[in-house]
């Protein structure tokens, strides 16, 4: 008989534990607790988000896109550049790829994440004028997540920015950190609000 049978939650019998190391790769409810004992998940999430978006947008051919003689929806026609200015969108695409590379390593993350999300929104709205399906809308989801990563910038502890911040700190503060008794906690607020966002979008579907 285990405690679980009497209504008390038994961690050792949870599915996550029974799956061993595989289970530890599973779902983490960041909304319940946005802190963890290591900042690795936060950095891995940045890598996954950045590479997903690069993989998705790197194939876009804006010259061909703008040569289509009609728009599917005209609501957002005001953000679509004239066909001969296709290179503006191509430049945005390249800058987004560069910004996302810097975002993944965490260099000037507030700026790079904001630049990438702004261009993603613009490219997303332009593509929306031809195809408003789920082929386009994930670009906006990615833009939301990028903003959350920039908004909770101090959570990006495994990043070039964090190394630069640490370099400017005094030796005394390093000593304090090493002598501290309490276990270190690392915020994952971008993943917390990202998870809530995904929840609203997916729950809203049903």
């Amino acid at each position, binding site marked *: 008989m285990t405690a679980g049978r009497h209504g008390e939650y038994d961690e050792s019998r949870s599915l996550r534990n029974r799956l061993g190391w595989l289970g530890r790769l599973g779902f983490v409810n960041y909304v319940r607790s946005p802190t963890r004992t290591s900042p690795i998940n936060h950095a891995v999430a940045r890598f996954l988000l950045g590479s997903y978006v690069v993989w*998705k947008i790197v194939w876009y051919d804006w010259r061909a896109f703008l040569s289509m003689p009609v728009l599917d929806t005209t609501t957002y026609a005001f953000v679509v550049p004239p066909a001969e200015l296709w290179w503006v969108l191509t430049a945005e695409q390249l800058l987004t790829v560069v910004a996302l590379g810097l975002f993944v390593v965490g260099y000037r993350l507030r700026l790079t994440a904001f630049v990438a999300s702004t261009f993603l*929104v613009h490219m997303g709205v332009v593509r929306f004028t031809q195809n408003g399906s789920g082929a386009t809308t994930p670009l906006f989801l990615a833009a939301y997540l990028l903003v959350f990563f920039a908004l909770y910038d101090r959570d990006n502890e495994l990043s070039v920015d964090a190394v630069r911040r640490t370099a400017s700190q005094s030796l005394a503060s390093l000593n304090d950190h090493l002598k501290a008794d309490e276990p270190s906690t690392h915020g994952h607020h971008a993943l917390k*609000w990202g998870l809530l966002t995904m929840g609203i979008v997916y729950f809203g579907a049903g």
Partner: protein
Amino acid sequence: MYHYNIMVLIGLSAVELLGPLVPVLTVVTLLGSVVVAGLAIHYQDRPGVRKAFVLLFVFCLLSVTLTDLHFLPFFAWHKFPATVDADEVRYQIRVVDDAGRELNYDRQAPFANDGIKATSTAKRMATVYDQETNDEVAAYLLERGREYRVTVERGGRFLRPVRFPPHGLDVGWDRIDTTQYGEFVGICVYEMHYATNEAGTDIVSHEEWVVYEYLPASASERGRATDDAADRVSADAAAGTTRGVVA
């Protein structure tokens, strides 16, 4: 299509509720969201800024989700509440080869990664555009279709494993042996009527006919059937027609 959402429940349409505000809100939401996000990121260390931004964000996202009014960059995925009528009308673009064979138009032909929303383009060609616009669009689609076919036959399959996977389940030309078709000479748009049984589990009738045809070279010279296009009703779909639904 019918959506369960607050607007339907309270019996109001977006236009009735927001009226002339819709175009203003469209611009303000799009530009405002970028500006507000930038300000919030810049002033994130001031007390209350992050909390206020997240609250505003969740409010906007929840609003579009509950009302199904899209104000980009906020969007909603209303998939499951969308029901299909017992009598459904759909439209499809097909490319015609020199022997009169038809092939479902690959929506990725005009431009890379998911391309146009072909079902929607087909519907507007059948119901909205005038002849002149239709001819312009069809000429464009035919031209791009020919170019894309060359790409696919030359080695499009080689890059497919590393390309971003296409959205939706329809069968693109890279999964069809396009070499068995002759030269592409025209574009046609089909109107297709489906009737399902009461349980919605089976299609009881399926009829389709051509509502628009674009054949720049003389059709009879190319060996295409010369009977009036509007009379032609083919019950069995040509090879490679849509087997999935793109939402």
